[in-house]
């Protein structure tokens, strides 16, 4: 009997255990958000979420922070996902090496109870003020947030931050993520969880897709090949080519949206952010559906207005017929065709795109043949900088050991032109190319305004001096030094700040003035002239004025209309010839588009 009782109690105990476990499992977490997230009662009697909106940069007022926190409560209740936004100076100032480390620490710490539900889902935003970067770290099991949403979040945050409205920025971020979570997009993969909040970001990584086909116009089996093609175009021509399809333009005008997307997305090659982006906006009606192209950097010059319009026209039939993928491919074909047309041989362009450097600060001594020592290069660069400063003439020293079959003049010209050398509008400068071991293969050229200064005679003189130095000393360093020094010398002596004509005009004016002075001096020699006054013979005190009689005759009033004040200075919109500015201020070409 005792044994039976013991079994019974054990069974009962197990039953209770199991049921309670089951119950616990099935039990929905109904604790209010406040409790779960350890809300505390503040002095003013309001509940607030503990530390979701932490602003250590003092960009928001206390009221604003409270508002954001309230908003976050709503977000969490609706999406069942936690979100937090830290605005700090930098993770380093907290003693962390990276945003991940920082986020980990705070997420996992006991004091800061982040994470919703079992999985502890949380979207952790960190804004580092010093770097002007907004980063995002995922925790838990939340559905992936689309690149789209993150970009928009980043964009909004940045936009509002620029107008010192951190509050709206924070709300914007939360909004974007909220909306994205509601319209769950399973097919997109966030490519990076760290994106900069600045609007001028030279991205050179492959991580961000250049094919952003949110409206899924390209068939799945083709996406890889399209992405590869875009990458190839970029490599070959140094032009970033992006295809973006989306269901809306976020309430903005399609062209403006396109520009902003490009800018805030950090696309573009080099400091000028050379690139071209095709945006296809889908929608239920023809009025909604629209495609437009925007260009930036050098691409503005590569694609003139007419070229863009031509592309639009060619694309239209396919788009009208619903063959969107064909239309897009056709667009890419036309883009490539134009690039081929305006940019010199692909092999040449391809070689250089790997190591793009900033233009005005690019090296002026490019030692591809590795014949110059570092100290020699430094000396040359210093000298060249002085010449650029003083005479507004660029100088490029280029050595190479393989010209890929190109004539030295062509190679040098392409290099100079497409690497962005040259001062001023005319891209004025002098360049030398020396090929190693073949001292007779080389060339010195002058471009732009400098070509007037360094005419054929001057270039010939320069050439003979430099080559003489090369053949006699076989030392590239000293030959290049001679070259640069001579260029400086020529520039100084021939480059008279005034044109000859101006100098002549000056001379004439000086001659006139001096001649007048001389005449005056000569005239002062004249001692004899007729006396015309008797002023010194007036008997003192004899001058008597009897009367000075003033009679008023009439008066006349004339009036003249005042000139109209000039109309208020135009905003810096719309640069010359077809360029416009995005909200970030970057100049874009292209624009216009077609409904389909």
């Amino acid at each position, binding site marked *: 009997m005792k044994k039976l009782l013991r079994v019974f109690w054990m069974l009962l105990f197990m039953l209770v255990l199991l049921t309670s476990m089951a119950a616990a499992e099935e039990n929905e977490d109904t604790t209010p958000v406040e409790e779960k997230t350890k809300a505390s009662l503040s002095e003013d009697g309001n509940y607030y979420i503990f530390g979701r909106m932490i602003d250590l940069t003092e960009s928001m007022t206390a009221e604003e922070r409270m508002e954001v926190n309230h908003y976050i409560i709503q977000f969490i209740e609706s999406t069942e996902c936690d979100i937090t936004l830290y605005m700090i100076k930098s993770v380093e100032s907290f003693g962390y090496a990276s945003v991940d480390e920082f986020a980990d620490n705070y997420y996992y710490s006991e004091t800061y109870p982040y994470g919703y539900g079992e999985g502890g889902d949380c979207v952790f935003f960190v804004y580092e003020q010093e770097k002007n970067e907004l980063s995002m770290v995922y925790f838990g099991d939340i559905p992936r947030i689309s690149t789209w949403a993150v970009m928009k979040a980043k964009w909004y945050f940045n936009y509002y931050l620029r107008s010192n409205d951190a509050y709206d920025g924070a709300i914007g971020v939360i909004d974007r993520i909220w909306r994205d979570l509601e319209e769950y997009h399973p097919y997109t993969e966030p490519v990076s969880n760290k994106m900069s909040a600045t609007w001028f970001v030279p991205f050179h990584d492959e991580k961000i897709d250049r094919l952003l086909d949110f409206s899924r116009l390209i068939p799945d089996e083709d996406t890889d090949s399209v992405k590869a093609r875009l990458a190839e175009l970029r490599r070959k021509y140094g032009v970033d080519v992006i295809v973006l399809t989306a269901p809306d333009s976020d309430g903005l005008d399609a062209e403006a949206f396109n520009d902003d997307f490009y800018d805030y997305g950090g696309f573009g090659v080099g400091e000028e952010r050379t690139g071209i982006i095709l945006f296809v906006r889908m929608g239920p009606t023809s009025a909604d559906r629209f495609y437009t192209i925007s260009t930036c950097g050098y691409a503005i010059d590569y694609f003139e207005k007419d070229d863009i319009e031509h592309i639009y026209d060619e694309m239209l039939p396919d788009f009208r017929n619903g063959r969107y993928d064909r239309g897009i491919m056709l667009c890419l074909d036309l883009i490539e065709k134009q690039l081929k047309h305006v940019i010199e041989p692909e092999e040449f362009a391809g070689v250089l795109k790997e190591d793009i450097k900033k233009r005005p600060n690019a090296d002026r001594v490019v030692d591809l043949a590795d014949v110059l020592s570092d100290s020699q290069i430094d000396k040359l660069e210093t000298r060249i900088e002085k010449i650029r400063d*003083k*005479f507004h003439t660029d100088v490029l020293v280029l050595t190479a050991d393989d010209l890929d079959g190109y004539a030295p003049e062509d190679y040098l010209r392409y290099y100079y032109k497409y690497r962005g050398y040259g001062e001023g509008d005319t891209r004025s400068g002098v360049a030398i190319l020396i090929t190693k071991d073949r001292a007779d293969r080389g060339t010195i050229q002058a471009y732009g305004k400098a070509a007037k200064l360094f005419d054929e005679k001057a270039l010939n003189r320069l050439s003979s001096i430099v080559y003489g130095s090369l053949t006699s000393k076989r030392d590239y360093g000293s030959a290049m030094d001679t070259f640069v020094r001579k260029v400086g010398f020529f520039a*100084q002596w021939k*480059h*008279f*700040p*005034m044109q000859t004509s101006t*100098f002549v005009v*000056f*001379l004439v004016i*000086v*001659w006139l003035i*001096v*001649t007048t*002075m*001389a005449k005056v*001096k*000569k005239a*002062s*020699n*004249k*001692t*004899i*002239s*007729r*006396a*015309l*006054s*008797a*002023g*010194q*013979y*007036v*008997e003192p005190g*004899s*001058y*008597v*004025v*009897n*009367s*000075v*009689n*003033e*009679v*008023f*005759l*009439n*008066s*006349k*009033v*004339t*009036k*003249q*209309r*005042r000139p109209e004040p000039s109309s208020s200075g135009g905003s810096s919109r719309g640069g010359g010839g077809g360029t416009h500015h995005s909200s970030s201020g970057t100049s874009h070409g292209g624009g216009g588009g077609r409904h389909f």
Partner: protein
Amino acid sequence: MDEEMNELKTDAVNLSYKCPNCAMPLRFDNEMKRFVCEYCDGSFLLHEIKDAADGAEGYNWDANKEEIKDEKLEGTVSYVCKFCGAEIVTDAITTATKCPYCSNVLLVTESLTGMLRPNKIIPFEINRDKLRELFNDFAKSKAFVPKSFINNPVLTDIMGVYEPFWLYDSGVSGSISYNATKVRSWSDSTYDYTETKYYNVTVDGRLRYVNVPADGSKRLDDNTMDSIEPFDYSKMIDFEPGYLSGYLAERFDVSADDNLERSKLRMWNSTEAKFRGNVSGYNSVSKTSSNLRQYDRDVHYALFPVYVFSIDYLGKKYDYAVNGQTGKIVGELPFSKKLYRIWKWKRIGIVAAIIYAIGFLLG
């Protein structure tokens, strides 16, 4: 018609018509066929002038000469220059051999009638040596004078001559009228306004001139004599023949009337300047008419000390006159084109070099 005009012209030349308004000499304008007074811009027909002349105040300056004795000054000797006709007088002791004006031989003429006795004289204060010194300074002080001239001016035949001058006293009175304007401007948001008030201003007054000099010498150029003014009248004393000792004096010959015009012009100009000074506070003033006349006139005859000499330089003769009292020298100095050019181009060169250098440095 033409005959008439010719007649008029001849008349004008002979009679020297005076302007009815301001008594200045009239000029016949061929275009307008009228007599024009350049002084007050009046223009007249002949009959208007004649009518005015009849009633005009004439003044016979020569009547003054009654005070001036027409006699042969005792203790003086007269000479005549055969070459240029100059009539020289000096005291009995001093012998004049060369004509001070043309350096030719003088002939003594006892038969000349006496000259007018001067009222006043200003004695010489500058002697010949001082003169040389002053001339050197003079030559050095002027521009573009050839070095060789400065270093070695050959002052030959320096003659100290007492030149006859008329000294005029006269009161001038009358009125001058002007057109004057006062301008005021202001603006509102639409217009700029300009108000011009027109006035007629008349100044009426008088003043007196004393001892206004005019050259009484036939020989010497009037403008030159004007230019060596002023003389310091405080040193002017009553005439005594003794002062002529060692110096020559030109025999006075020109009638006072003849250079009345010169002195009158001077007086008119100065009077106008004075009156104009009383028209102030206007934006613009322009003379419309002038109505002046002389009164209380008097004339004296004086001898003033003048050196006259010339210098030959490179084939050209340069004449000079010097105020024998103050030492003021007038006359044309040789002009070196070379020095002129050098001066000019040196400066042009310097300025051009500076411009070039500045441009160079600014790079």
